């Protein structure tokens, strides 16, 4: 049987549970510069075959996975990433179309919501949901520009400040 020498750990790897990266970002654990494991946020770990959960002080840190499985996960993630928009931002283009069509839309569909897809108004409805649901069903996950047709923009208020105590 081949003999393997394991390097003795002299300083333990510590994770601060209050670190904002914990649970959000993938943390790579290295030994002598080489990755030995990754702690993947639990939200993403569902794509992984087997996971060991890392926990500290009762807080879930993520799933510990070996480098090979993490590499496979990265490949899966890249493969499933949204396709880049060809010819600049499709979203910007649809927005420009909305601005161009707005004077006419105000005459015909004032107060409604509209979805612009492929530079055309394709769906109207009384609210965001009634427009986006059929559009997603028909066109799938792609940039679409949905907006309310109003002469004066509605301003949505989110007024609650967060008090920071020191």
């Amino acid at each position, binding site marked *: 049987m081949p003999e393997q020498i394991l390097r003795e750990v002299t300083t333990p790897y510590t994770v601060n549970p209050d670190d904002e990266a914990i649970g959000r970002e993938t943390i790579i654990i290295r030994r002598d510069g080489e990755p030995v494991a990754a702690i993947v946020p639990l*939200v993403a770990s569902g794509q992984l075959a087997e996971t060991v959960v890392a926990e500290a002080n009762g807080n879930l840190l993520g799933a510990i996975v070996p480098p090979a499985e993490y590499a496979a996960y990265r490949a899966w993630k890249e493969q499933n990433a949204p396709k880049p928009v060809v010819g600049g931002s499709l979203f910007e283009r649809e927005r420009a179309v909305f601005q161009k069509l707005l004077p006419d839309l105000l005459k015909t569909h004032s107060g409604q919501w509209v979805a612009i897809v492929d530079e055309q108004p394709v769906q109207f409805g009384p609210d965001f949901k009634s427009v986006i649901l059929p559009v*997603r069903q028909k066109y*799938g*996950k792609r940039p679409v520009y*949905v907006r309310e047709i109003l002469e004066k923009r509605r301003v*949505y208020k*989110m007024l*609650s400040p967060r008090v920071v105590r020191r």
Partner: protein
Amino acid sequence: MKIAYSTAFTPPAPVISAQVSTPDDEAHSPVLPTLIDTGSDSTAIPEFVVEQLQLIPAGEMLVQAYDGTPTERALYDVVLRVANIRFDGASVIVRARDHVILGRDILNYLHLLLDGPALTLEILEEQSPISNP
């Protein structure tokens, strides 16, 4: 069911859990602490969720924060699960927080009792498991 206010906020605040997902991948979605914010017209999700769920903009909204300045914000469509109710095609914006802010666009579908002195929140009615207001 009574839920104790979260002491992560000062003063303690009503916080529940919400699941944010996309229609094409509901299995892998984060369950996030969610602040009940009756002062918000709209619902907001943390920035990191956009990357995790690979959300793409679906529109725009003019949002006025507490400093009074209206700014254009990208609008995303997600599936929200709150208090056993599923909200398809929910519109959300992004804010630099680590929790969801549940605005009145969603809260107005819920029966909630905020018991300030007891620091508890109660969802008064059990909703049907899959409904779509």
